[in-house]
């Protein structure tokens, strides 16, 4: 029995090697007929590898315009006032849903994207775009806790450690994420629209917010770096950023066992795109095993590409970092945020504001 188990482990470990051997990787080739065309991409800043775009230009014989934005809202503002000519954008989950509802996205042509099966099945059919009609995952990550390793030498494994910590804590100013965490404990839907359940989540957090010194709008990592807090609830990328900047082991990131929020940034084609065909081709290119791996090796976010992960193209260091790639058990407990509609949004906003007042923030 024991031996069989061991054998199984050895086989599992060897699987990537076998995979890499048996499936000789064939470099992505561009479909014919796009030479001389132009593709215009609108993406988040520093969110692409140095050679991703130049390689695509060479492979297809096309030229690429590449512009950057810093928030979903900034991108949305540009597209809403009339698409100025972008073919491809990278909205986050909730934004995909909003844009689809407003008619700002055009459906993908999946016949032109044969690499779709490369994607991790768990990340497909997310509640914000149930059939992936409009979007496919680009990169993803989590919200969790960044903490000072000297305060927590044994790490953090539960939200209860955050609630009970005798010291300063910063929460993330993202109402749906924070209430979602409370819903995990209350056994209610993280995207609930029920007023009573939202109030219950508010009270749950309020009872556990005694140690909160800041509800930070995306700069909890700075408070952590300055030593003003011992724990900051933050996006994984932000905590990783301060770890690289200081080149030290003073900070660590963990996803508590109870679960947390998962965010997915998606490739989508905005309405009135001048060249949607080439945008579909580019999406297929990004979903290629090697291209996806190069992307992750450069920007250090989790790849949604199962083929990239299995092929061994992604650096071991990144693949084995639970701050970047959560374990399958952790993935099972992650929840995605969707657009809950104006009515529920108002309930959430009110509950959140009341909570902030009672917390004295």
């Amino acid at each position, binding site marked *: 029995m024991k031996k069989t188990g061991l054998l199984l482990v050895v086989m599992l470990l060897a699987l990537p090697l076998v995979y890499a051997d048996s499936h000789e990787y064939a470099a992505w080739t561009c479909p014919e007929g796009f030479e001389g065309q132009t593709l215009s991409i609108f993406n988040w800043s520093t969110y692409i590898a140095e050679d991703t775009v130049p390689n695509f230009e060479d492979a297809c014989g096309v030229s690429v315009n590449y*512009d950057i934005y810093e928030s979903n809202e900034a991108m949305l503002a540009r597209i809403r*006032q*009339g698409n100025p000519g972008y073919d491809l954008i990278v909205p986050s989950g909730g934004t995909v849903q909003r844009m689809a509802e407003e008619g700002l996205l055009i459906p993908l042509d999946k016949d032109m994207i044969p690499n779709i099966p490369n994607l991790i099945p768990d990340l497909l059919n997310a509640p914000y775009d149930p059939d992936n009609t409009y979007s496919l995952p680009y990169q993803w990550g989590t919200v969790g806790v960044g903490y000072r390793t000297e305060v927590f030498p044994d790490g953090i494994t539960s939200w209860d450690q955050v609630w009970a910590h005798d010291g300063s804590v910063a929460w993330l100013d993202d109402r749906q994420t924070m209430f979602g965490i409370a819903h995990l404990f209350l056994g209610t839907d993280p995207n609930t629209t029920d007023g009573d359940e939202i109030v219950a989540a508010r009270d749950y957090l309020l009872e556990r917010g005694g140690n909160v010194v800041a509800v930070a709008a995306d700069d909890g990592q700075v408070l952590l770096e300055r030593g003003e807090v011992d724990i900051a609830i933050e996006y994984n990328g932000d905590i990783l950023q301060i770890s690289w900047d200081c080149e030290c082991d003073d900070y660590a990131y963990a996803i508590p066992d109870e679960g947390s929020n998962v965010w997915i940034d998606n490739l989508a084609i905005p309405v009135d795109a001048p060249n949607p065909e080439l945008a579909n081709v580019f999406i297929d290119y990004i979903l290629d095993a090697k291209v996806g791996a190069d992307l992750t090796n450069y920007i250090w976010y989790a790849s949604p590409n199962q083929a990239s992960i299995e092929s061994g193209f992604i650096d071991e260091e990144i693949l084995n970092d639970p701050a970047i790639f959560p374990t399958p058990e952790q993935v099972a407990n992650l929840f995605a945020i969707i657009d809950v509609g104006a009515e529920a949004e108002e309930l959430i906003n009110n509950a959140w504001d009341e909570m902030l007042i009672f917390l004295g923030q």
Partner: protein
Amino acid sequence: MLTADQQLINEDAMSRNRMVRRLGVIGLWLNPVFSYFFLWAPILVLVLFSFNQSRSVASFTGFTLRWYGNILNNVMGAESAFSTELMLNAFRNSLFVGTVATAISTVLGTMIALSMARGKYKGKRLLDALLFFPVVIPEITQAISLAIFFKVVFDWLALISGERIFPGFHTIIAAHVTFNISFVAIVVRARLADMNPQLEEAANDLGANPWQTFWLVTFPLILPGVISGALLAFTLSLDDFVITFFTSGVGTTTLPVFVYGLLKLTVTPEVNAISTIMMVLSTFFIGISLTIQGRAVARA
């Protein structure tokens, strides 16, 4: 004769006076120190970190010219990193937009200033008031109205010609010209107001036609105003974020819009380096402008 007591009081008052005066002297001396400090300290930090080895602004780890080297390499045509390429494209876009918008708005602005100073026509008062519009209305209002205007016009043109027009350099430049015209006109008009109108009359008396009068008399006299108006327009155009953001198209990102896009993540030292270069250039231009104006005043 003063009594001893009175003398004592007087001396007391005098020493107090001396104290106040001395404080005043120290205050006067400190005043520029503080002013310069507040004006320049943040800029010095920016310059300092353009020489930082680390990509982070958390600490200064050592001196390097690498970031300037990256920029130079790209300018010299060598292969360079995608991110550097993007930034320099934005910088080139900024210079291009600034130059063209300045040229157009300087000509138009000078013409408006002349017509207001010399012309007599209906609606001059209204034009006078409207000229200050772009200066006083909030930039965001102007940005959104321009964005909507372009959209409506382009939709309309698409309906007629069946060809879709996208925003791009033409929209950014048109937008920059709209706000720059006012600044140029105001500066040139101030210069025209200082000019002695009898000089033009004298030229007329001596047989010069209006064309000759303008180029031989008026223009050389208002030239310092035109140049400083143009430099002001160029600086404003280079700086502008809000209006550019709303009117730009694909691949026409200017440097301010590009830097704003970096905010979510790290602003690299290359951005510090290019900002330093831009600042040196601006200072140079302003220096020229001030020298020209100074000379003109000395001559007048």
